[in-house]
């Protein structure tokens, strides 16, 4: 293989020595063999053997790739990808307006970011999605399990019980209306205990734990192959306070984003992140923008910004590879995320059963 030595994933010190000794391509390294290599550049035989192993893996990975491509090499024609996408399901949110602007729901194999001010409903949406991913296929869901990584401690099991009970009831109503055999069979396994037992919950207290958890996630996902949703509630929280070195933060966040994309792609899961908002102070005005900086904006494939308009909650699709920018209104009831129905607008202040630590918004406070 004519692969240059500089492009191989070896340690920098080793690479420098190889360059000084005059090795240019991987083929030369393989020809020399471990004894010759250790003599020429002055490293031990074990190190030379290890380095040659890495080189051989890279080069044989190149050569062994078949022309048609396979899952491990991630090479496809656009036609194959189109067929795959059309057969892929979406994770619905039970708010049909939101599903519409997202193109059917939260997409698998992509990273979706939900940004919003405190109290607007980000954690509610995450909990709703963790329940909705488990809807059986005959009802239009993806029949998967969920991983919930919590950094802020805002996951309330009682609330998930409410949402899950409403979802099960909804499915029962559909089954009664349609009277089909597979609906009834699916409903036997789709119960409250089942839903709760398939949400895998992790609590990470600082950024090191979060990074470690994401690093170990591929192993976990290969054991639990039915997982179709990974939620990280509060990716901004561990990175925003007590971080002195901002360039380290950018580096870590970008590395994290790449790892999450690999997870989303390899395991066909949707990754949902929630982000906080920060104020950017311009010359004449200040605007609310998503936190973690400009470069983080490129990490997510789909970006949804939730905000208030007087007492109405709105969701804006800010960035998507296939849908247009648009804004819709939604509503959070005791059953979870729902569409806005006109008579229900007046209930919006009391119907918001958010976490008890968030103050309910009232008319006077907004003025």
């Amino acid at each position, binding site marked *: 293989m004519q692969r240059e030595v500089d492009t191989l994933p070896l340690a920098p010190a080793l690479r420098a020595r190889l360059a000084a000794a005059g090795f*240019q391509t991987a083929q030369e390294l393989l020809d020399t063999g471990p004894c010759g290599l250790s003599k020429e550049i002055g490293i031990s035989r074990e190190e030379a053997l290890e380095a040659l192993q890495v080189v051989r893996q890279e080069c044989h*990975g190149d050569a062994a790739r078949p*022309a048609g491509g396979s899952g491990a090499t991630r090479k496809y024609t*656009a*036609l194959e990808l*189109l067929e795959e996408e059309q057969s892929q399901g979406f994770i619905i949110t039970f708010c049909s307006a939101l599903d519409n602007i997202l193109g059917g729901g939260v997409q698998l194999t992509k990273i979706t970011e939900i940004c919003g001010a405190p109290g607007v409903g980000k954690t509610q949406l995450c909990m709703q999605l963790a329940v909705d991913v488990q809807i059986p296929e005959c009802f239009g869901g993806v029949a998967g399990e969920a991983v919930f990584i919590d950094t802020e401690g805002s996951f309330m099991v009682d609330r998930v019980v409410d949402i899950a009970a409403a979802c099960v009831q909804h499915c029962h109503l559909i089954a009664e209306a349609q009277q089909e055999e597979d609906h009834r069979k699916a409903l036997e396994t789709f119960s409250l205990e089942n839903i709760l037992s398939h949400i895998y919950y992790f609590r990470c207290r600082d950024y090191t734990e979060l990074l470690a958890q994401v690093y170990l996630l591929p192993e976990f996902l290969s054991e639990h192959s039915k997982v179709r949703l990974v939620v990280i509630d509060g990716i901004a929280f561990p990175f925003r306070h007590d971080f002195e070195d901002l360039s380290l933060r950018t580096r870590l966040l970008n590395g994290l984003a*790449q790892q999450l994309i690999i997870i989303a792609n390899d395991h066909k899961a949707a990754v949902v992140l929630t982000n906080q908002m920060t104020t950017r102070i311009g010359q004449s005005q200040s605007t609310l923008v998503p936190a973690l900086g400009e470069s983080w904006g490129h990490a997510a494939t789909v970006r949804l910004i939730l905000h208030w308009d007087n007492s109405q909650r709105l969701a804006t699709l800010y960035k998507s590879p296939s849908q247009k920018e648009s804004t819709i209104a939604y509503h959070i009831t005791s059953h979870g995320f729902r569409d806005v129905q006109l008579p229900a607008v007046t209930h919006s202040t009391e119907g918001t059963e958010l976490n008890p630590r968030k103050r309910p918004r009232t008319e006077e406070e907004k003025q």
Partner: protein
Amino acid sequence: MVVLRAGLCPGLTEDMIQLLRANGIRTVVDFVSSDLEDVAQKCSLSYKALVAVRRVLLAQFSAFPANGADLYEELKSSTAILPTGSPSLDQLLDSGLYTGEVTELMGAPGSGKTQVSLGIAASVSLGLKQHVLFLDSTGGFTASRLYQMLQAQTEDEEEQARQVLGRLRLSFVLQLEALQRIQVVRVFNIYELLSALQELRDRLSQQVVSSTGPLKMVLLDSVSAVIYPLLGGRQSEGLALMMQLSRELKTLAREFSLAVVVTNQVTRDSSTGALKPALGRSWSFVPSTRVLLESKEGSTQRAASLAKSPRQPTGIQVELDIG
């Protein structure tokens, strides 16, 4: 700095190499720059053999000068200009994407870089019937959106062609063929990207025509996603890998007459608060043309302005519709 090895050229045997090494001549440079009469005496090798070896080594390892007229003729015959499918973007790029060069599209999140690259891929595959390689490092490639764009472009062509019989089936077949000509490789870190480029180079140099066909364009979306995790801090290998990547892209473009399109992010300048392209000064020398995409509030229009070009004056702005 290539080490002398047996078999590097016909006259070079293992014994010769051992003798040369004993006298301190290890690399090609040492050999070519040494006094051959001296070497012949010290190593007791034949002078004629050494001169023959040196001639072969020079032919293999040195660069030959070419005069400007020959270079011009060669460029005229090998460079092609690929239209991007959007007339205003073509106007900005001086009638299209030039093969043999690296073009960069940069913009803030949501400004339309992936959309424009999908549009370019669709136009080259459908309109010019050339193969396209799309390297996706962000997971933003959506085949259904590409299909939508192909459908929109086929409708335009149909109006111009005005065929009557079997129009629907013909356009569907055209779209399917266009989709098959676009190959997508998902690379999520720098080493995967480099090995994908290496594989491309091997395929092109062996001229395997069967499955790939005439490849004319390589799109990389985005380059900053794979390089950002490596830059910064006290490690300098990130910069070295970035330069290695840029060399690989430029030599691919030049040697095989490809048009390489790269998308890049923008970051905020900490002192002035203005937006500037990511990856810093070193990367800014790599693409020969840079286009900045900016979004306008609440519409599908985007403003594209030329930030760097070898042919046009910078600062030209056009409007693009990515709807």
